[in-house]
């Protein structure tokens, strides 16, 4: 159950500004070579941070009951299952000779 009444307008403003800042950050960092695939990690981490801010504050999950957290988490967790199984297939395809390859 939600009781977002505890979240003040000031909190919303702060979150809004942080979100704008993170957007600028992710855009800027994208143009800098962090090496070794770290750019991907950085982009995802920043996106997850932004998402958490929206979910916890704008969507009132921070002041909601535990079951809301479970539902919110379940969707993302299940998506990870789908992605995990699918990508695992792809990245382990050349473990044995003769397995199907993605042509470049």
């Amino acid at each position: 159950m939600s009781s977002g009444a505890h979240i003040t307008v000031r909190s919303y403003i702060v979150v809004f500004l942080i979100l704008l800042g993170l957007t600028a950050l992710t855009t800027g960092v994208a143009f800098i070579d962090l090496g070794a695939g770290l750019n991907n990690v950085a982009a995802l981490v920043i996106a997850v941070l932004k998402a958490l801010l929206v979910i916890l504050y704008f969507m009132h999950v921070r002041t909601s009951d535990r079951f809301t957290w479970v539902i919110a988490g379940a969707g993302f967790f299940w998506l990870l299952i789908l992605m995990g199984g699918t990508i695992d297939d792809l990245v382990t395809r050349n473990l044995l000779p003769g397995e199907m390859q993605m042509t470049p």
Partner: protein
Amino acid sequence: MNGLPREHYLNVDYGIRSWLFTTDHKRIAWLYLLSVTVFFFFGGIFATLIRIELLTPQGDLVQAETYNKFFTMHGVTMVFFFLIPATPAVLGNFLVPMMIGARDLAFPRLNLASWYIFVIGGLFTLAAAAAGGVDTGWTFYTPYSSIYSNTHVALTVVGIFITGFSSILTGLNFIVTIHKMRAPGLTWFRLPLFIWAIYATSIIFILGTPVIAITLLLVGLERLFGLGIFDPARGGDPVLFQHLFWFYSHPAVYIMILPAMGVESELIAAFARKRVFGYEFVAFSSLAIAVIGFLVWGHHMFVAGQSVHAGLIFSLLSFLVAIPSAIKVFNWTATLHRGAISYDAPMLYALGFIGLFTIGGLTGLFLASVGVDVHVHDTYFIIAHFHYIMVGGSIMAYLGGIHFWWPKMTGRIYPEPVARVAALIVFLGFNLTFFPQFVLGYLGMPRRYHAYPPEFQVLNVMSSAGASILAVGYLLPLLYLIWSLRYGRVAGANPWGARGLEWQTPSPPPTHNFDTIPLVTDAAYAYDKEPEEVYEFGKSSHA
């Protein structure tokens, strides 16, 4: 009570508008019952055509392309328009509020919308059939479905896409209802196991169905706009399609069996007059099946080009998912031990379920083993396996449930002797149809071919003969259930002397289900007590 109640949900209002605009979950259950029955016999027509063609080794009834349409339409209709909706949308819709002491589902208008969406999706698919059908197999493997097939793929996938939302909304409704609308005193571990099963099924509805929706949408877009995301010639990977497809379609088979297992628990308890042995284990096993069922989809792709690494992981998890199912079978059997068994028609279906589901489930273990699956994949062994579970399991339980709750839904009893005979005919017809297919598959007869080597003919003839018997077994209930609406004996509130909350209100029930909502003081299947001790009407805080 000598006759039917004066006013109940069926006679409270008359006319087609009172049905097409109803928000009463019980009437919506009937709308679904009529729809899924139509689709069942439609899908059955294609099964008949298939079995007629397979009487002879030559492809002499129809051309191969036409035969491809037969098995595709059979699969699409039976999976998406019968098996997935049947028990949840018919029995679930009728029973969930009644079993938990609610006056309706959480969102009645959404419930009606679900039915309309189901029908619209079905009409698209029927239109595709009328326009010439689809020949891709119900699995729509790419790039054949996305590029090369000349049949009505887009129309069919649109129909399935639309119907998927019916599932999603129904699942949403059930989850919210079960969480928020239970009667006072009805804690989770006092719920009937049917409710646990519906809840677990709803989790799959919610998390799985959207994936096939988007996947079929992508196939449709690929067909319409000439994209190449599943076309190997343009860098696409058909195995990606299979991952996305089976991520839903494997859990979908658990959508088809979990509600049936829920019905099974209710039937076994009622006709052994005992609490279900190991109730908590059965309840948690439903959740376990729902969750683990999402982790095994790759066992459909062992020979599709999936990596061996992934194959091994999926194989291991597939062995794991058998465990909660086995727990249920053990617990049902243990419930029967020292029970006061009666052999009414619902119980005959329930007993048949235990045996046939077990056979189907055990053969699933063979298939989970990669080495065996390489040999029998795409043979009749697979077909026999899933028909043992979906027909020998799901449909038997569905029929058992329809018979069991028929008095509650209609206020009348079906003719018991005919019903028992029909159940036996179904059991015999089923085994004669599908057991030979295990042998055929193991001997190497491939699926989805309209012709086969002559040495397979005897077993095929046996199978087709069985199918004709099975058809009789299915037609009989259609006839005598309709007959009973007029001429059946009046049932009274609780003809079986069962303990569920749904039996503590008149048959047929009033629109608002209960005059007052009771306080629940004990768990389900309290056959060691009188119902009045368990359900205290007039004691609860609810109106």
